[in-house]
């Protein structure tokens, strides 16, 4: 198992959701809020178009950590804020930096961005290494 030090970066995760992704995620998660799947509805409530589910983007943040840890069950805690709107057909980049190590527990500061648009901010994850 890799050992971590404060300041280390986890491997970056990059993924580009396709145009059909919000509907597939809506069906799999049960979150059928029309702002994710109905373009006209999204525009009618002042959004530029269908937006990604925050929890889809959060799943990518989780995956960056479970892949770094080598075991999905190593993840003990994950908290994020959704602050920018995410959109399909744009690459999501997940980054994480180790901010504390205590025994076998590693805590990271993590975020997800599409270009300069930071869609997940102030994320914090804890996993066992």
């Amino acid at each position, binding site marked *: 198992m890799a050992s971590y030090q404060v300041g280390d970066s986890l491997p970056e995760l990059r993924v580009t959701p396709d145009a059909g992704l919000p509907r597939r995620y809506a*069906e*799999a*998660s*049960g979150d059928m809020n029309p702002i994710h799947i109905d373009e006209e509805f999204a525009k009618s*409530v002042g959004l530029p178009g269908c937006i990604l589910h*925050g929890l889809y983007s959060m799943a990518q943040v989780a995956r960056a950590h479970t892949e770094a840890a080598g075991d999905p069950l190593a993840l003990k805690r994950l908290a994020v*804020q*959704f602050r920018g709107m995410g959109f399909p057909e744009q690459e999501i980049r997940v980054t994480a930096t180790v901010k504390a190590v205590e025994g076998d527990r590693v805590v990271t500061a993590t975020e997800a961005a599409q270009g300069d648009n930071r869609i997940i901010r102030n994320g914090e994850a804890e996993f066992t290494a």
Partner: protein
Amino acid sequence: MALNRDFIGRSYPAPEPYEVSRVKIREFAEAIGDLNPIYLDREAARAAGHPDVVAPPTFPIVFTLTGAGEALADPDFGLNYAMVVHGEQRFEYQRPIYAGDELRHTSTILEIRSVGRNEFVTVKTDVTTLDDELVCTTYNTIVERGGAA
């Protein structure tokens, strides 16, 4: 219209346990694009020491998102669902979720606060086994845009 603060502290136990299925875990893992074999393949999960396939970390949203939904849909609460976006989410894990688990969950309206023109509502959900073993706790903060105006 501001949200009704009388709802703070109210708890809503799910009427029946949620039964975790292999099919649902697969559908969810495929939707998030995370194809770890222990989510998809029982043999791979068993080889890694698990009784059955494991749910990905954000899977509990499948059954906790609508926790307290009864309250959020109550006209007395005053929420305009069309203006709702997800603000914050936290998961704290105590025990893995496996296919075949039957899980109880109780949602509590923890906090309602105004930030600028928006209303923030935080719902805490405790997920347990039928034997009352704590599986995870989720904190879901939704934002009603313009709700505090």
